[in-house]
């Protein structure tokens, strides 16, 4: 606290005393201000400060993109950027060998962070093209692009193979079995790792002749059944995977039981087209016996993948016999009162024309076989 002119100065006091106004002077001395003076009491707090700082991107330069060929596209990874606690968004661009530039890794394919890196897959590449990639960290606030870093330096070039020498769709995984003993829909999550554009094949086998309905979004490949005391049905459908992530399927089951699985075939590197049938579907019923030899399928396009299914009710075991197909599943399950044996195998058909089927073997059943062969590319 500072005080200016707290009371009368000695000279002023004396002057007033000699004038005989001592009482008035004493009264005035009790107030903080002398009449006619600008002086006053005052006080001030120590200054209070508010320091504000803006964030800055770290590291100071956007990390370069590392491209890697993977089935179905080019995987891109880079070192993440940070700006305070804000969420960083990345804009990814590619430039091809013709000079065309376009944004990639958008929407559902947007980059995600994992284990200290950020990455995405460019699944829109074209065979025979060479690409370079850049990425740019951006802060998006309320839908508005605000701060950004300069684009990263261009990546090393990556060239997508011109000719697909192997199968265009390669077996990747199968879902867990969904079983039921009554009619009504069941949910079939897509197999782990499914990405948009993968080929999904639904295979359902049941101990009843009633046929399932086609699930929404799927294409029916084969639907056949046998009647009588050893009734059964085999149902095969397929689709190009999307982001829905799950199939809803009613196998029209009864107490005899039904088993259903999804099989995932991933796109090979350089394949950008969605899966299509590569020829007419072959299917039929084979007479009861220890073995069955489904007919092959005549493919109408090269680099096809032939998927063959054999199923039989009441078997104690099923296995792949002779042939060039690769077994993907052989199982016997009994979700209801009847054992259900299913075998799935596939083969690469490099060129068009007939492809041979496999021979399947079973133990213990006197029922007829059901089978189907479907080619995709």
């Amino acid at each position: 606290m500072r005080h200016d002119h707290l009371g009368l100065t000695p000279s002023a006091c004396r002057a007033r005393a000699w004038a005989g106004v001592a009482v008035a002077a004493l009264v005035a001395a009790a107030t903080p201000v002398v009449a006619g003076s600008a002086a006053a009491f005052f006080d001030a707090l120590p200054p209070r400060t508010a320091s504000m700082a803006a964030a800055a991107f770290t590291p100071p330069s956007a990390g370069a993109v590392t491209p890697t060929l993977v089935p179905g596209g080019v995987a891109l990874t880079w070192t993440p950027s940070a700006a305070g606690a804000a969420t960083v968004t990345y804009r990814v661009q590619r430039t091809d060998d013709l000079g065309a530039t376009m944004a990639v890794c958008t929407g559902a394919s947007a980059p995600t962070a994992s284990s200290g890196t950020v990455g995405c897959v460019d699944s829109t590449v074209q065979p025979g093209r060479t690409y370079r990639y850049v990425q740019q960290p951006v802060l998006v606030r309320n839908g508005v692009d605000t701060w950004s870093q300069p684009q990263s330096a261009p990546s090393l070039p990556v060239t997508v193979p011109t000719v697909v020498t192997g199968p265009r769709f390669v077996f990747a995984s199968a879902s867990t079995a969904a079983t039921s003993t009554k009619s009504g829909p069941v949910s079939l999550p897509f197999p782990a790792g499914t990405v948009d554009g993968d080929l999904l094949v639904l295979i359902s086998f049941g101990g009843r002749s009633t046929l399932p309905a086609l699930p929404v979004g799927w294409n029916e490949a084969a639907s056949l059944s046998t009647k009588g005391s050893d009734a059964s049905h085999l149902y095969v459908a397929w689709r190009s995977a999307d982001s829905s992530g799950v199939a809803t399927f009613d196998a029209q089951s009864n107490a005899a039981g039904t088993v259903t699985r999804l099989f995932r075939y991933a796109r090979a590197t350089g394949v950008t087209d969605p899966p299509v049938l590569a020829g007419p579907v072959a299917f039929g019923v084979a007479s009861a016996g220890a073995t069955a030899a489904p007919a092959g399928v005549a493919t109408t396009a090269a680099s096809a993948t032939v998927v063959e299914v054999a199923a039989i009710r009441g078997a104690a075991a099923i296995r792949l016999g002779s042939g060039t197909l690769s077994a993907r599943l052989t199982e016997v399950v009994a979700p209801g009162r009847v054992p259900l044996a299913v075998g799935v195998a596939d083969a690469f058909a490099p060129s068009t024309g007939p492809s041979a089927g496999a021979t399947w073997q079973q133990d213990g059943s006197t029922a007829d076989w059901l089978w189907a062969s479907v080619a995709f590319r």
Partner: protein
Amino acid sequence: MTTRSTARRRGRRRWPVLALLAVAAAGTGIGTFSLFTDVQTPAANTFESGTVQLGLGSATSSCTVPVLVPGDSSTGWGSGSADRPVCRIELAYTGSADAWLGVDVLVDGAATNLFTGGSDGIQLKLRTDAGVTVLDGTAYRDAAGTARTLAVGTEVEGILLADVPAVTGDTVIVELDYLLPTAAPNAMQGRDATVTFTFRAAQSSNQPVLGCVAGRQCGTITWG
């Protein structure tokens, strides 16, 4: 803080008495020389002045602002993220004499400051709990009520916080809200700014504000 001004004026007290006696003698005993003498034990007279004293109340916050990106704002701003802490200062007036309350504002920092004085830099709102706006965006108001832009490095002095004097026990809560607008360009990255407030109290007795208005500068008050 308590301030006392105590005047013990034994010598001074004697002078008026002697003067009065002299005048009386001159008027009643012309031509004679009589000498009156008296010795009085002087009584002690103590005078206490009022005090002007300002302190901080318990609602005062530390005013630590996290690093900002465009769109960040304090909870009281009304737009933006509205999730950053408000700077809150509670003024507690404890003086015995009524006083005007005011504030000086200084925006400081590097030449490339987060405060630009425009819509692309940090925006500030300084308001009291009585609804008086001291800073709005980048501007304060001068004594005439004209909005003027704060300039980095130039202190704005004596903005009146209330139209009525504070009395003992009064509290005034002053809050600083802020926004870094989404229009802040890339060049703002890494910049900073420091806003300094000096809160003042000045006696109101014998010091009228003469037309000053709360929320504006007041030059008729001697702030210190």
